[in-house]
């Protein structure tokens, strides 16, 4: 059954280098240079997949990235399986293993094929219409839909390959190395522009490189020979870089483009180890020349999707480039001259052309004459009305077209075949151009959209600009280049061109049939199984916009993005709705042009390189002492230090108790630190904090709240006055960068007259906080020379000191409610100072504690955490922190908003303490708070923001926000949980040491 359809020597494959590969379990052979598609075709295999919806057998249809059907799953071991690979693009390598997708149990016998016979029940919008009701059934429907949907399987283990990103800057980027792209690249580079030429295929020259006949000549040479010489010259130019196997995925504004360079996918597996697989190029080009060519259009008729039906240009390419015949009895069907180029190539190679069906009545060109000379029967003015053969086409039915092309007349004639090449003319590949923001215009002559206005410094040339024939390209391209590159002359001024191609075309979007449309399956989008019938149904149901029709019928929504059929969909809409093509517009072409692997998109930013990890200088000690870590922004913070198999709760209870009973030590290095200097520093702080700063003495510390202009609490922290014009501000760990940004914003834009300079010193100083009744004794041991007497060094003050020869700052400030000292020291000394503290504290059972204990201790004291107990709706008044809002200051950020009609409402959510009736019951953070369970709907009064079991108070404590909570002290409220209700009492948020005895002890 397998045959060898390899014909005479070809341009691309090396017949001395045989490669074996597996497809659906069978081993086949191809040659170096083959794509998977060409190698399969050489083995007479057309059937490669099943269609998405009806599971119809489908074959290879194209020879490029526009392929809708031949998408396969590659298997290189378990971790390197890749779905949705186009067989027409992947070059074969020794050991390639590929399987068909979307079929079960096999591509030849597929259970889902039953959908084909049920298709009258599966019209456009079937899923939308059927699974709408009742809504509660959706989960059940979804289970079955998911099972039968999807193309290919994604790997379920990490990708072992290496990917990377690279920035490229160039004067001129040329996209596409066909004849016009090569001319452009050579001209630009030779005119002194640093030029980059990218080509998605492995070879240069586009379709001209195999246009090797006497019917297309440049300077009296066959066009292929002429171009080969050009390529040899182009390769020698110094300031021209050429990248093959590189496809541009996206063309963004300001000439920023993304391209994927494929580096190893064509290599034998053993040569890929330790090499970068794919590279994402981020290209910024001063000028872009788009030469992306054009894509041949299929023709839309009944059963136009059978295996064995290919684009005519693909048949030509497989013959010329790969030396492969797509069949032994070929029929070609066309509305233009292109198929005659194919016919002549096939004749040259000795491949049989059974017949040509041309929908044009009166035609005449040198190409046609040559074809007729070879005794090939041409049916002029005919159309195909049906095809036959389930897994491979075996014959076609043709009928005569009426003069107006609206219907078929006369009797049917059957012609047998094993391959059918179709050509509906050409569509310029304007995808990248429109991605960049370019606007198209419709050219009525040959029914194509071509570039009209350019949004950036770019042009389109060649067939993507609507210049399809050799003479148009060679005459127009040099003209366009001269103007675009601002040069006087090109090498292509007096060139002699001969092209036998005649441009006449008879465009019929949907070919007439002898059946009614409802009885036909004329595919417009092959991958998504959208037919002409579906589009007509969408129009009958009232859809008019092309974007709506697209989504309703799924036309153009596959991985191929409708590169083949979108124009026909437009054409059918325009004819049915009697609107003009140019006015309908097109659907939006979105990046990527061809799919990108996730690996390429993320590059090296995977695993531990996914995001920046910030560690304190004491990090290693935490690891050595078995700390569990939590992520706070990009920081890794010690969370708790479990001992002897403790769980988090047990560890936190022990740490909290130790900190209050004797001594605890915390690494607070992650707190944001901003150094503030300048003669207006005090005035600046007055404006950004709610309280007053002018009178703060040198050597004293003060807590401040920062608001947004809307009056809502934004950040908090302690700021210390180091000198007359010098402060150091601390911010929350997470808020450091945004606070600095906000302060800079006000300084630069609102108050440029202030003499203030801000510098982030977060990473420069480490902060070691020692707290508890014995903290003073420990600090005294670590810093013997410092006077720690309460009189000389009271709470909320600061001293410069030294540990050995190293300067440090010591602040007596507290976030726990205990007497507490913070040592700020240059980061590289921090670990040894920390170890000194631990050593000095041994006799006092100094206990390292993490963020969880810190949260618990501050909650006992009723201190808020900005971002946990506040969100963007809490004012200082809502927090019951009226005391920190200056009444005297003329202005500060957010002041005016504190007496807007909304912010003075009495029933705003306010911060309160919550004590559970059962002291053992710990509330869940985020739980809702209500008063009346019988009212419907139940009124939500607020929610729990912080909740812990306090080992020092021996009961459960919580903070929460409650509507009008300030005036509800002592009132009973309810926390409704899934299976129970928890009764709580509203209290003051300060649970421990209201008199601050411990602070000043």
């Amino acid at each position: 059954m397998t045959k060898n359809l390899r014909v005479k020597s070809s341009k691309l494959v090396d017949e001395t280098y045989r490669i074996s590969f597996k497809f659906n379990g069978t081993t086949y052979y191809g040659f170096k240079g083959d794509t998977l598609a060409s190698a399969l075709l050489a083995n007479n295999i057309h059937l490669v997949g099943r269609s998405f919806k009806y599971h119809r057998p489908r074959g290879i249809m194209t020879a490029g990235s526009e392929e809708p059907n031949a998408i396969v799953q590659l298997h290189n071991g378990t971790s390197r399986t890749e779905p949705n690979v186009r067989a027409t693009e992947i070059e074969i390598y020794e050991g390639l293993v590929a399987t068909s997708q979307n079929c079960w149990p096999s591509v030849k016998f597929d259970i889902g094929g039953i959908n084909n016979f049920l298709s009258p029940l599966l019209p456009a919008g079937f899923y939308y219409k059927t699974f709408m009701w009742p809504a509660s059934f959706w989960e059940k429907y979804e289970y079955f839909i998911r099972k039968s949907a999807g193309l290919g399987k994604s790997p379920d283990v990490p990708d072992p390959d290496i990917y990377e990103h690279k920035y490229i800057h160039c004067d001129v980027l040329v996209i596409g190395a066909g004849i016009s792209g090569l001319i452009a690249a050579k001209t630009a580079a030779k005119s002194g522009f640093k030029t980059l030429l990218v080509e998605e295929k492995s070879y240069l020259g586009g379709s001209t490189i195999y246009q090797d006949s006497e019917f297309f000549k440049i300077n009296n040479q066959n066009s292929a020979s002429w171009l080969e010489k050009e390529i040899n010259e182009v390769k020698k130019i110094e300031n021209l870089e050429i990248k093959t196997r590189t496809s541009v995925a996206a063309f963004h504004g300001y000439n920023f483009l993304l391209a994927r360079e494929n580096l190893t996918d064509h290599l034998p597996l053993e040569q890929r180890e330790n090499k970068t697989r794919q590279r994402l190029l981020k290209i910024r080009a001063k000028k872009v020349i788009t030469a992306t060519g054009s894509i041949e259009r299929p023709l839309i008729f009944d059963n136009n999707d059978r295996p064995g039906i290919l684009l005519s240009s693909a048949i030509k390419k497989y013959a010329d480039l790969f030396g492969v015949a797509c069949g032994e009895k070929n029929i070609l069907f066309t509305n233009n001259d292109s198929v005659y180029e194919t016919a002549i190539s096939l004749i040259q190679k000795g491949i049989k052309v059974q017949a040509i069906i041309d929908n044009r009545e009166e035609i005449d060109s040198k190409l046609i004459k040559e074809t007729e000379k070879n005794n090939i029967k041409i049916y002029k003015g005919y159309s195909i009305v049906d095809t036959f053969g389930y897994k491979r086409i075996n014959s076609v039915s043709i009928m005569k077209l009426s003069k107006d092309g609206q219907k078929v007349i006369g009797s049917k004639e059957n012609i047998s075949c094993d391959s059918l090449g179709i050509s509906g003319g050409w569509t310029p590949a304007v995808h990248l151009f429109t991605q960049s923001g370019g606007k198209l215009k419709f050219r009525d002559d040959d029914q194509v959209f071509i570039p009209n206005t350019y949004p950036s410094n770019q042009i389109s040339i060649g067939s993507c600009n609507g210049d399809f024939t050799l003479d148009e390209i060679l005459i127009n391209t040099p003209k366009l280049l001269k103007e675009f590159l601002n040069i006087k002359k090109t090498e292509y001024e007096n060139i002699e061109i001969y092209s036998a191609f005649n441009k006449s075309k008879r465009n019929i979007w949907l070919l007439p049939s002898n059946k009614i449309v409802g009885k036909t399956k004329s595919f417009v989008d092959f991958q998504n199984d959208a037919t002409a019938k579906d589009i007509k149904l969408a129009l009958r149901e009232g859809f008019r916009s092309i974007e709506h029709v697209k989504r309703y019928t799924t036309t153009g929504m596959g991985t191929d993005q409708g590169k083949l059929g979108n124009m026909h969909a437009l054409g059918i809409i325009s004819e049915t709705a009697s609107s003009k093509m140019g006015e309908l517009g097109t659907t939006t072409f979105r990046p990527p042009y061809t799919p990108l692997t996730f690996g390429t998109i993320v590059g090296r930013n995977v695993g531990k390189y996914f995001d920046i990890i910030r560690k304190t200088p004491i990090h290693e000690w935490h690891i050595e002492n078995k700390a569990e870590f939590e992520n706070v922004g990009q920081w890794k913070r010690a969370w708790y230090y479990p001992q002897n198999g403790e769980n988090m709760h047990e560890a936190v209870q022990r740490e909290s108790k130790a900190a209050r009973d004797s001594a605890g030590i915390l690494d607070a290095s992650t707190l944001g630190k901003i150094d503030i200097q300048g003669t207006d520093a005090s005035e600046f702080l007055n404006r950004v904090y709610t309280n007053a700063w002018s009178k703060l003495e040198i050597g004293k510390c003060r807590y401040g709240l920062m608001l947004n202009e809307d009056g809502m609490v934004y950040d908090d922290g302690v700021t210390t006055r180091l000198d007359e014009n010098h402060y150091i501000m601390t911010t929350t760990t997470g808020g450091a960068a945004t606070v600095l940004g906000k302060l800079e914003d006000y300084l630069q834009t609102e108050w440029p007259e202030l003499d203030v300079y801000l510098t982030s010193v977060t990473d420069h100083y480490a902060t070691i906080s020692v707290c508890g009744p014995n903290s003073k004794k420990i600090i005294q041991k670590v810093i013997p020379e410092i006077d720690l007497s309460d009189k000389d060094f009271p709470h909320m003050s600061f001293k410069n000191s030294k540990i050995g020869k190293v300067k440090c700052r010591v602040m007596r400030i507290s976030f726990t409610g205990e007497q507490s000292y913070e040592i700020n020291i240059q980061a590289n000394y921090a670990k040894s100072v920390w170890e000194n503290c631990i050593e000095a504290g041994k006799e006092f059972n100094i206990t390292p504690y993490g963020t969880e204990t810190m949260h618990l201790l501050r909650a006992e004291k009723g201190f808020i955490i900005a971002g946990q107990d506040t969100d963007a709706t809490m004012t200082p008044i809502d927090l019951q922190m009226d005391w920190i809002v200056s009444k005297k200051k003329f202005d500060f950020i957010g002041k005016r908003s504190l007496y807007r009609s909304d912010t003075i409402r009495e029933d705003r959510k306010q911060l309160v303490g919550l004590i559970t009736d059962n002291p053992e019951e710990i509330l869940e953070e985020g739980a809702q708070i209500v008063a009346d369970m019988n009212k419907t709907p139940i009124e939500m009064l607020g929610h729990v923001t912080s909740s812990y079991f306090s080992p020092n108070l021996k009961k459960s404590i919580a903070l929460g926000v409650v509507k009008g909570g300030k005036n509800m002290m002592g009132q009973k409220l309810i926390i409704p949980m899934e299976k129970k209700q928890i009764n709580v009492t509203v209290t003051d948020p300060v649970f421990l040491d209201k008199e601050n005895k411990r602070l000043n002890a």
Partner: protein
Amino acid sequence: MFLINCPFCGEREQSEFKAGGEAHIVRPKQPTELSDDQWAEYLFMRKNIKGIQFERWNHIHGCRKWFNMVRDTSNDEIKAVYKMGEKPPVK
């Protein structure tokens, strides 16, 4: 992705910058004298223009300076960049 001509550093990738909303909104000198409506106008109301728009930008991963930009939102063309405090060079 824009290529932005920072008035202090020159042309840089957009990824180095942060957009900061509408430009030339001056913070009232005496907020206490404003009615709720007037304050709300300053605080909340922003234009969303199709066409020429004046914007604030910050070269956050560069010199950290704020500056102004005139941009046509319909095609993303940057008409001009200028320093804070300077008058817009185009209308």
